[in-house]
């Protein structure tokens, strides 16, 4: 029983982790919380949905299409909404306002496109559950968990081990100096947005499979935000730890105090972190930058 709760918590946490990572990536580079991330998840999930319905394809192509779509939209979004602000180096408040506006625009596009109703992805698996050692695990959850781990591992390898990753880190650390060292700063920013958008596409598809698709699906981004605050804004490692922690806490709370109070406790935990350890679990270098 209690193991079952932990399995559920891990499943929920792994989606939060995907959302929080997409968030952190942008925070890392431009030092602001990209609130259009949620609506971007919805938009790319819907693109994946219509691709799945039209072509009847299996899960992997749908994920690829959604990730590409998410990446592309984020790439364009950066150019439209954030490029000027970055160029002028004006107050970060403009990023904030611009990202909220962009998010509203995405959500508006989705609502006009599909209407206020909900949709359900076509079925990708024959049976929905697998039995492992006496425990019942839902197949979408398992695949979601595995692909989250895979995507995050790839991302970490990319950031830590490749030349582009090193460039990304240096831009995040000091944009101007990185530029002077011959790094194409805007290329790197675009890359970060593309990756963040692709992660939004991936999490959007899984959210859609698990929770049905509707225009306000992106509101779940709040959970990703809480997770990245707990973990330390801007730290990818912290975001993952924070997300898993949040998923586990939520499921445990739902089990013990009921779903009415669970969100209250989630916010309390976030507030406690902001009071006691505002840099989050992992954050250290971010605080001095932010």
């Amino acid at each position, binding site marked *: 029983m209690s193991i079952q709760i932990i399995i559920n918590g891990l499943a929920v946490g792994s989606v939060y982790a995907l959302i929080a990572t997409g968030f952190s990536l942008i925070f890392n580079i431009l030092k602001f919380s990209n609130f259009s991330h949620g609506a971007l998840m919805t938009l790319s999930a819907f693109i994946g949905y219509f691709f799945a319905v039209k072509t009847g394809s299996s899960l992997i192509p749908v994920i690829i299409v959604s990730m590409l779509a998410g990446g592309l939209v984020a790439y364009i979004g950066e150019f439209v909404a954030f490029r000027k602000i970055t160029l002028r180096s004006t107050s970060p408040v403009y990023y904030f306002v611009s990202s909220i506006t962009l998010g509203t625009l995405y959500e508006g596009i989705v609502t006009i496109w599909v209407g206020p109703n909900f949709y359900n992805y076509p079925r990708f698996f024959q049976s*929905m559950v697998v039995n492992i050692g006496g425990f019942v695990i839902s197949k979408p959850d398992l695949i979601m968990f595995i692909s989250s781990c895979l995507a995050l591992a790839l991302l970490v390898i990319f950031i830590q081990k490749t030349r582009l990753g090193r460039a990304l880190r240096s831009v995040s650390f000091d944009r101007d100096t990185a530029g002077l060292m011959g790094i194409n700063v805007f290329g790197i920013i675009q890359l970060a947005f593309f990756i963040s958008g692709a992660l939004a596409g991936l999490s959007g598809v899984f959210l859609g499979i698990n929770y049905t698709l509707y225009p306000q699906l992106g509101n779940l981004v709040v959970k990703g935000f809480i997770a990245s605050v707990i973990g330390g804004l801007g730290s990818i490692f912290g975001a993952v730890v924070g997300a898993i922690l949040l998923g586990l806490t939520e499921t445990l709370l739902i089990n013990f105090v009921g779903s009415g109070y669970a969100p209250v406790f989630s916010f309390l935990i976030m507030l406690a972190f902001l009071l006691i350890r505002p840099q989050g679990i992992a954050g250290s270098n971010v605080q001095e930058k932010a």
Partner: protein
Amino acid sequence: MKKFLAIFLAVLMIVGMTACGSSQPEAESPSETPQQEETAPEGDIVIGVLQDITGVTSTLGKMVQEGAQWAADEINAAGGINGRKVKLVTYDTKADVQEAINAYNRMTTTDKVSAIIGPPVANITIAIAPISEQYNVPVLHFAIDDRATIKDDGTPYKNMFLFQPSAKQQGAIMGKFAVEEQGLKKFGIIYNQSNAYSVSLLEPFKNTVESLGAKVVAEVPYQPNDKDFKTMLNKLVSAGAEAIYAPNYTQELILIVQQARAIGFDGRLICGLDACPPFPTLCGPEADGVIYINNITETEPQIQGIIEAYKQKTGNDATNKFFLGYDVMKILAKIIEEVGDDPVAIRDAIENLSGFQGLTGNITIDPNTHQTKGLEMVMHEIQNQAPVMLKRYSAEQ
């Protein structure tokens, strides 16, 4: 130059906003004509239709509206009522209470409708009920919550009439059926704490199963934004529930049923009206074994005929709400034929309606409650993602 551009953009935005604002009242329904008084020919009988056409419950509202329109078209094609045509005036509530109240006031005061076909949504109908006391226009609605028809002192609102079994009756029907016909003894309940429909079906079910010797072993409320029900369902299963009662809206129901199967629960799920098609196909194979209540059964020849004709014409499937709208329009036509289109006369005739054979059953209104009396519901089971009729059942049985 830049300043001019900024001012120009600001002006453009304001113009854009005003354009959006003014286009809103014109809902997509072609029959909505706020200037009804000038345009309607003298002889038309005007019936108001107050439904959610574009909001979150639009799947329900649109169906009632389409059903009423279908019936009105049939009536008009057969020569109208006493030679006069029926004209429906539809207003979109957008699932918003304030919007609905404004539309209601407009219908009763400006459009001078003879009767109103109300929504199948509790919160809107409950809000309209006390306001309706000031007017003399009957509202024929489908909100099963008692508060939409009956005042706190136990007497009915004079203009509010419910045209399907009430929450009490439906909860009792499901409870009786589960215990007596399915032999179930231990129930777990999962319900949406902030949804009047879900909450109103809770107590009658509990009272009925407990009076029949069965037990409710656990109940979990959830919030409207909850998406992960596995932990809550786990709680029900580990408390020993052999069946789960889930009187919830379709979108949540899909998640609940899928996730119940995903945690390995293979017992019965007993659901309300929202498990009727298209739920089985939306939910997928997990829906098999779900038991639910419905106003109609799709296999009846007369209903099937309309479903097919409607599908041919619009490409959509007619759901149970379609037939609720259809039936009340036919009831109104019959009454207006007898007493004329004066709202007060219609109201009195509805109060004493007895034995009207509609597609959703034999309808009699109880003057003491303004709800249907002894109206049967049809219990179904989902097998191979399609509904199979089990039995007709009424609360009085």
